[in-house]
Structure formats: structure tokens, C-alpha cells
């Protein structure tokens, strides 16, 4: 190939494919770089469809409306919180405080609903979202003011939020009987039902907040100036600052929005299990992060999409809930999710590393 330094073809095209080294390493490298060229969304869709086919072959009962509706009901809240995590990750940050935030918001919302006697679902949702957004904003403020590493900051915040809930609010579990009836209904109501086998199956109302959250997040990220600023900050922070992006505003929006979604998710979770237990949820943050990363969000920021994270969460939900169906103990679910995470991260980062080295950019050695 002729040298023309200024007219290089796209580094991702096939001209990079023939590799000098032979043997298995060479084949592995070639395979990895080919895989890295697939779009995350199509790759994930393929994996999910393949998985469903395998499960359906082993257990034909799996393919039913009941299973689908059940997955939607158990996955909806998690998808909502994953959308918040996606927004944070696009900016190049990471958040592990959201579940502590979710349970705090849900607890406060339930408490306020009970204390004021306003047994209204929209009121409870409003409070949960407000508390979540407030706590999230504090995250954003701290990270911005002291330019701190986001993981350690939000890890510390997780401790502070949870500690605050247990110590200052002196939180005790609120059982179904003492929960406001609007919340109990929220967990069991369906949009529509139809008879199936022995009883009725129906689509949970959780679908409504889920669709609203999907649309809002998509709109925020793709149709607003601040959304594009979030991508810009993740893509090249220095350039974004030079371009006059207000980092404080971006940070507050990112973490505030993630917090708001966490609040909503918290309320859905307590309505679903009909119990407000301040000690649950925490410890599952990594599942959500894994879903976002599997869905194509990069730890280094700038990339990630709403469809990607929804598919990522779908895969995680499937792996968490359906291993039993194919005859594996549910205790293996984390192993497979971890495996998927490492595999997908390897593919995308290996691609970047190779491209950078080729361009004599040594930053990720």
C-alpha cells in the first residue's frame, strides 16, 4: 500500500486486519478486532436472541406471555436506574451510590405519605424523585468542587447516605400492612389482563414509568444541548471546557438526573416487594454498572446509548432470572454476568488500544 500520511483510510477498515504474528495469539487478535467492529446493539441483540432460543429449546414453556410480562415487571425498575447510570457513564464518571439513594428516597417518600396522610401515588413519586435528585445533586457538587475521582466519591456517599438513613432517620422496615395503599396497588396493578391457563396474566403498570424514563433519557441525551455537552465532556473534557461548556451545570444535571431516576426506581422496588426494608438493595450496584458497560457505555466516557443499555440490562435480567430454566443453579448468574462484562470490555478496549498504539498514542499502556 502506498504511503500517504494525510489520506489514511479509516483505521478500522480491513487494512488493519492482516496481522504479522501467527499462531493462536494471532488468530485471537484477529478475531477480537473483527468482533470489535460490530456495533454493540446488533451484537447484543444477537446474543440475547441466541440465549432465548437456547433456553426455549431446553424448556419450551419459557416462550410465553407470562414469562415476558414477568421479566418486564422484575426488570423495569432496574432498567430505569440503569438509564441514570448510563448518563453518568457517558460523562466519563461512575456512580455506585444510586441504590443507597433509591432506598433513602423510597423510605422518605413512604414516610411522608404516611405522615401527611396524602395517600396518593403521584405525590409519593414526586417526593421520591425530589429526594433522589437532591442527593444526586450533592454528589455532583462534591465531585465538581474538589475534582475527585467519581468512584471513590460515590462509594463514600453510599456509606454516608445509608448511614444517614439508618442513624438519623432511625429507619425500620415498613411492612405491607403499614404501607400506604396507593403504593401497594402500584406494585400489583396491571395495564391489561387476559386469562391464561389457571389464572390471569397482565402487564404491570411499571411499564409506564419505564417508557417515560426511556423517552426522557433518550430526549435528554440526543435532543438537548446539555445532553450533547454530557457526551462532549466524556469524549474530551479539556476540549469541552475550552468550548465553554459549564462543567458545574453538566455535573449537577448528570448526577441530579441519575438521582431522580434512582428515587423513582426505589419507589417501584418497594411497591413491588411490598416492603420498605432499609437494608435491602445495596450491594447490587455492580449488576447495574455491568449492564451499562455490556450495553456499550465506556468507562472513559463519550459513548453509550439508550438502546444499548436496555439490551445490556435485558441480558443481565435474563441471566439473573432464567439460569434455573436451563438447569443451572441461580447462584451462577453473577459468574456469567461477570464473564460477559470482562469479555465485552476486552473486545472494545483491545480495539482502542491497538488503534492508539498504531497512531503512536501511548496513553493507555
Amino acid at each position, binding site marked *: 500500500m502506498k504511503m500517504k500520511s*494525510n489520506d489514511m483510510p479509516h483505521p478500522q477498515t480491513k487494512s488493519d486486519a492482516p496481522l504479522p504474528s501467527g499462531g493462536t495469539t494471532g488468530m485471537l487478535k484477529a478475531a477480537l478486532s473483527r468482533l470489535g467492529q460490530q456495533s454493540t446493539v446488533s451484537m447484543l441483540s444477537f446474543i440475547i436472541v441466541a440465549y432465548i432460543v437456547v433456553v426455549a429449546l431446553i424448556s419450551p414453556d419459557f416462550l410465553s406471555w407470562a414469562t415476558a410480562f414477568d421479566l418486564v415487571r422484575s426488570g423495569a425498575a432496574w432498567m430505569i436506574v440503569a438509564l441514570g447510570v448510563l448518563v453518568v457513564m457517558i460523562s466519563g464518571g461512575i456512580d455506585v451510590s444510586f441504590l443507597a439513594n433509591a432506598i433513602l428516597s423510597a423510605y422518605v417518600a413512604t414516610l411522608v405519605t404516611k405522615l401527611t396522610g396524602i395517600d396518593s401515588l403521584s405525590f409519593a413519586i414526586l417526593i421520591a424523585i425530589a429526594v433522589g435528585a437532591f442527593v444526586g445533586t450533592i454528589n455532583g457538587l462534591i465531585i465538581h468542587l474538589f475534582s475527585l475521582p467519581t468512584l471513590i466519591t460515590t462509594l463514600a456517599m453510599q456509606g454516608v447516605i445509608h448511614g444517614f438513613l439508618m442513624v438519623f432517620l432511625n429507619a425500620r422496615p415498613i411492612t405491607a400492612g403499614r404501607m400506604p395503599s396507593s403504593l401497594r396497588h402500584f406494585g400489583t396493578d396491571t395495564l391489561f389482563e387476559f386469562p391464561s391457563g389457571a389464572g390471569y396474566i397482565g402487564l404491570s403498570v411499571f411499564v409506564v414509568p419505564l417508557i417515560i424514563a426511556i423517552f426522557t433519557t433518550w430526549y435528554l441525551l440526543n435532543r438537548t*444541548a446539555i445532553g450533547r455537552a454530557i457526551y462532549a465532556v466524556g469524549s474530551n473534557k479539556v*476540549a469541552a471546557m475550552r*468550548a465553554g461548556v459549564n462543567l458545574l451545570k453538566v455535573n449537577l444535571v448528570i448526577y441530579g438526573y441519575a438521582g431522580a431516576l434512582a428515587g423513582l426506581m426505589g419507589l417501584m422496588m418497594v411497591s413491588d416487594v411490598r416492603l420498605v426494608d432499609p437494608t435491602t438493595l445495596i450491594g447490587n450496584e455492580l449488576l447495574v454498572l455491568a449492564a451499562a458497560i455490556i450495553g456499550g457505555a465506556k468507562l472513559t466516557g463519550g459513548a453509550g446509548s439508550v438502546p444499548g443499555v436496555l439490551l445490556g440490562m435485558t441480558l443481565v435480567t435474563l441471566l439473573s432470572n432464567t439460569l434455573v430454566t436451563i438447569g443451572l443453579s441461580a447462584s451462577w448468574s453473577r459468574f456469567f454476568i461477570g464473564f460477559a462484562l470482562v469479555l465485552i470490555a476486552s473486545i472494545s478496549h483491545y480495539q482502542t488500544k491497538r488503534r492508539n498504539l498504531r497512531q503512536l498514542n501511548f496513553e493507555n499502556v
Partner: protein
Amino acid sequence: MELLRLEGLSKRYIGTQALDRVDLSVGTGEVLCLAGANGSGKSTLMKCVVGAETPDSGRIIWQGQSFSKLTPAQSRQLGIDIIYQDLSIFPEQTVAENVAFHAVQSGRRGWINWSEVDRIATEALDKIGAKLPLHTRLGDLPIGARQTTAIARALTGDCRLLVMDEPTTALPSRDVAHLLDMVRRLKADGISIIFISHKLEELFDIADRFVILRDGCKVAEHAPSELTSKRLSFLMTGVEFDSSKASQDLPKAAPTILSVESLSREKQYEDVSFSLKAGETIGFAGLTGAGRTEIALSLYGLNPPDSGTVTVAGNALNARSPLDAIRAGIALVSEDRQTQGLFPRKPIKENISAASYQARSGAFGIIPPTVEREIGDEWVRRVRVKTPSSDEPVQTLSGGNQQKVVLAKCLATNPKILIMDNPTVGIDVGSKAEIHEIVRDLARQGRGIIMISDDLEELVMSCHRVFVMEAGKLVAEFSGDDLTTSALSARLRSEG
């Protein structure tokens, strides 16, 4: 009519006074060339103007309105825009979005119309006569396309003053001509331009005025008619260039210590062959991206060549890592001192010892406790680093002394071959002379030196032979009486 005036701008980074009370003024529709060697403070000055840096003191006066500092958003609102040397683009986003970024962010509506984005991008690209795939991820496109994108972006707003920071460095000459045409067109539209460069011959016919910076101070201001390139280079460097070559004749029997045979690397360089004798200094001239740094990195084990052979002192060398190269007796003073050469917060002695730990360690990789101090103190003395102690963090040193530390780090490994990539970029005249003296000493001791430089005088002064590289190939070799700056610059200009 005066558009912008700067009064007494100063800025300091720990060990370096980047700007020292600089005054400057730009008129409407004027093309001002800000000249100066690398590191003379040109970029810092402009970053203060566009709000990317905050000056320590001084005033920025825009059409009579006085500011002590600006934010990026403020300066853009006033009508000041900049094309950064590093382009400052968003690699993960598409071309269209990159071009329209400012328009989107400063738009009064908070939401986006993507067809509007495409329209803005197409319009801006049309304005400079460029065609790019709008919806490709910018990080996947070559450097030229990225620069075009950055220029187009700067023109989307209501720009009154455009700053261009070293826009020609990475461009082949036909693109440079195109760029200069564009500058003329913008000037005709009444837009003022500050053009930053250290290679100024090409600018004599478009500039209305030259301002020269040296070591953070403004040293002169001239109309182009009052300047010759010789005068300009004196103003930039502060020394009268002495065309007599300081390098001495090689002994006839000097052995060849490095020979490179038809070395190639796809898309970087092709069929490169040369040899180097003990005591000889050879130079490489050419544009950024012509393949000079790429070859240096290949010899240093960081950019494996696709084919060809490298022989060091009779032994074939296939360096897969810098350690292999160091063990074979090759050291590299890299171009990017801050990220590649130094550990800024670490003490001087650790910086100097950094490449020697492996060689000086004993059993279990244990380093005798005195090694660091010995190496540090010895080399601080030998390369004359100006510091009270080798325990000082290296970031407290001035640029010139930092560069001596990098050089000392390489020399401490006792190399047979020293590769230097733009070794005197951004340092003061005194240190520059000292470094040249050290290099001559090294050659006298029988070491081979490869010098890559954009500073032709430096090459002529230090080298026995100079190669010109163009688009990955060695296209010319100068030596003896043929080796003059005018010959080199004529050859470089004739490219493309």
C-alpha cells in the same frame, strides 16, 4: 481601528514564567503573526485571550471593554474563536456534531434539531471548500480531516477575531497553500486573525504585522517589510546564527555503529536505509508526520517496523521494547518532554535514574541505596542542571533545565547511540547552547547521534549529514559544503 488590546499579561506555571508582562494589540481586519520559538509563550498568551487560561495579572481590552480574565463562553460571545494546536475536538462524536458544537451549545433553545446541525456543518464546511462524511465518528478520520473540522467549527459563530495556533505544522505544503488562501478570504471579510507559528517564511506575504515573543516576553514588533528571515530568527532565538559548522571532521577509521536497511512500516515510512558512524551526528529534516519520529520510535522499540533490519555495532537488533533498545545502547530524548520524558512531581535524582534502575540492580532486583543519589548528583553536575539539590521535584525547574534532566536520564544509561527528537524545543537560549555543547562533547567521545529537528540552523550547526524526509521516504541527503540552511529550506519548500 483597534479590536483587541492586551496590557501587561503575566502567567506562571510552577517552574516556568510562561508570560512576562506582554502587551499586544490587534486591529480590525488585520492579520497579526505571533512568532516565537516553541515554548516562548505564544500559545499561553492566546489561551488567556480565549479564556482557556487565567492570567496572573494584566488586562484584556476588547473594543474598549476591559477584563482581567475571560471565560471561554464570554470570549466566544465577544466574537473571539480559536483553532487549537491539538485541535480540541471530540473524537467520539460525528463530524457534523463537532462542527456544529458551538452553535448547538450557544443556541438559545435548549433542544436540538439534527437536520439543522447537518445544515450548519455543511454550510461551514462549504465556506472553506471542504467535503467530509458528516456522520462518521471523527476519531476514525485522519488528522487532516480533524483539522478541517476544527477550522469549520471556529467559523460557525459570529467570529470577529480568529486565533490559529500552529495550523501548518502537520500539513503538507499544498494544504498549507489552501489554508493561507482561506486566511486571505477571512481577512477580506473583515475578520482579524492572529496566526501563531514558528515557521514564518510562508507568512511574509499574508501578514500585516509580526510580533515576536521570546521566553515569555515581547521582544519586537515589525511590519513584514522591515524583516528578513535571518533577522526574524535572531529575534526569536536571541542569538546571531553562526553558519560555521561546529561539528568536527570524522576520523576516517570510525566504525559504523548503526545501520538501518530498508526499514518499512505501513502508512508511516517506507524503505528507509541509512548508517551512522561512531562520533557522527546525522540529522533528519521534514514535516511533522513525514515519518521522522516514527522511525525514531521504531529504533527505540515502540513502533515495530513491518520489514527491514537494524544492526547495532554488528549485531542485529529487533527491539520490542525500550528496554531492549536501552540494553543495545540506544537512548531517546523524546519530543514531548512533559509526558514522555519526565515524572514532574518526582525528585530530579529519580528522574535521572529512571532508565538506569534495571542495569544497576542486584539480586532480587534490589537497588543499592546510594545509587540514586550517585547518579543524580553526578549528572546534575555533568549537564549543569541549575538546582540547589537533586532532591528538588523536577517540575520546579525551568524548561531548559528540565530538558537537561531528560538528557541526563538518557546519558546515565551510557548509550552508544543517542536519538534526539527536537531536543531544544521550548527552552531558553542559554540552555539551548549548553545542550548543543553537550551533544558535541558526546560526538567527540565517539557516540553516534541522530538529531530530528524542525530548527534547520540547529541541524546545520550540529550535524555532519542531514537527511530530508518526505511522506515516509528519505528524499535527499546534504553534507559537507552543501549543508546549509538555505539549501535545506529550499528542499523542504519544494515538496508536495
